[in-house]
């Protein structure tokens, strides 16, 4: 009956959508060339626009070498390392809501996180397993780059940035290891920092600076917390940016072999 009365919802809807697309608000948000302005039609130009009109996607070039998208060449290891870094940032921020880096409060915070906080245990698990996995993927990424000879000119500098990123990843993992403040964390860190004490000449000073005292204590917790949640992420984001930028500057992905 609605049909006979000439009620055409599809046309009406199309009209409204069209009006919306023409509105000043819509046009000021979606700039010319955006696929959201006029819809996505599969054309070479729109495929390019998808990449160019997105802040995140335009880390990629519009086109890449065909061999570079072969899974067997990169195994996605670099991208997955980056994804894990994002995942760790998100889960880490969630954990920060419920965590105080204070020796008197930290352990009860950990217990509350696991028993009282919604998804607290799951997010903590994600953060911990994600961190271990990231160490592995970064390491394997380095191996992949070596075996494909991707560190050779003109990519020597990016290899160095990559080694720095590997070290930063290890430092992030190691500083995070102390934060639960349980027997496992404290003694693992004790063993780890005992090794640094053996540095020639400055060994004791290095250990003192890292621990905030001669042995692990409240200062260590605060210090490593700050390193873990602020300082090292800040540094690693800078180096990740340089790393990605250099990939493009050095002519995209390496190879084919």
């Amino acid at each position, binding site marked *: 009956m609605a049909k006979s009365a000439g009620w055409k919802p599809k046309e009406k809807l199309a009209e409204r959508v069209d009006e919306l697309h023409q509105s000043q608000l819509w046009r000021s948000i979606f700039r010319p060339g955006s696929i959201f302005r006029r819809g996505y039609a599969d054309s*070479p*130009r729109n495929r390019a626009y998808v990449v160019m009109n997105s802040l995140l996607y335009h880390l990629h070039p519009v086109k*890449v070498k065909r061999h570079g998208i072969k899974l067997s060449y990169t195994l996605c290891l670099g991208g*997955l390392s980056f994804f894990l870094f994002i995942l760790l940032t998100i889960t880490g921020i969630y954990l920060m809501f419920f965590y105080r880096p204070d020796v008197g409060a930290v352990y009860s915070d950990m217990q509350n996180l696991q028993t009282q906080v919604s998804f607290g245990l799951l997010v903590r698990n994600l953060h911990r397993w994600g961190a271990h996995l990231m160490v592995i993927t970064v390491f394997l990424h380095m191996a992949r780059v070596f075996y494909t000879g991707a560190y050779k000119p003109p990519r020597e500098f990016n290899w160095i940035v990559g*080694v720095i990123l590997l070290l930063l990843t290890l430092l992030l*993992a190691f500083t995070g290891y102390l934060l639960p403040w349980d027997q*496992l964390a404290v003694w693992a860190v004790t063993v780890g920092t005992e090794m640094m*004490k053996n540095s020639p000449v400055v060994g004791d000073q290095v250990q003192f600076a890292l621990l905030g005292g001669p042995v692990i204590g409240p200062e260590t917790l605060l210090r490593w917390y700050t390193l873990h949640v602020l300082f090292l992420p800040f540094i690693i984001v800078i180096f990740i940016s340089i790393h990605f930028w250099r990939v493009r500057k050095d*002519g995209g992905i390496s190879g084919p072999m």
Partner: protein
Amino acid sequence: MPTPDEVFEQVLAEEQAKGSSPVVATSRAKAARVRAERGSKDPNKPDPSTAPRKAPAAAATATEEKPAAKPAAAKAAPVAKAAPARKAAGGNGAVPERVQRLLAVVKPEAIQKVERQPMDRVNVWPHLMAAEFVALLIVLILITVFSAVVDAPLRQLANFNQTPNPSKAPWYFLGLQELLRYFHPQVAGVTIPTVIIIGLFAAPYIDRNPSTRPDDRKLAIVIFSFFMLTFAVLTIIGMFFRGPGFNFTFPWNDGIFFEL
């Protein structure tokens, strides 16, 4: 006064007579056409022939313009090939005073060295991004399932008077801790890590072989694999084959003294 198209033909002929490469000749001719179209309004403008046309990697980003300022240009702005010349031509005089933006600086030599081998290229969207997205989803699912099933360890509150036996470093340092059994602490804890780090940094400068083919670089692969394997073996021994007092055990006899 010659029409812009005549200027184009004339400059093209001149360039060809000079023996310039076809790419350079066309781009200079196009630039001349643009200048002719603009008339003698602005002779002080920088020579547009230095603007990017087919400058290899720069072009894609350089021509990614902000068309909001020039609505007419949106139509005439396809991707990598959008030359400034075409943009100006399509502007149909709607904007009288053009503000030139520096899109990219391309050295003259860079334009003439357009010798990149033609290569089979594919669009990142959808070919690469779809693969990346699937990889991301798989890892996300695996890690979420794993996290739902296996809980991260949380032992008792830290107690500095009670040393657990054995005390182990985080797993990525267990290779070094294992080395402590064999070498003086200064060697295992400081010298070896320093040498490894410096060696990694220096790898591209030590390995001067330009080839990336595995057949040409057997030595590099063997050396690298040797170090990787050694470290993996040391780490695995440290993880599973070290028990109380960090003494050697077999995990199938005494159990595993290791936590992630």
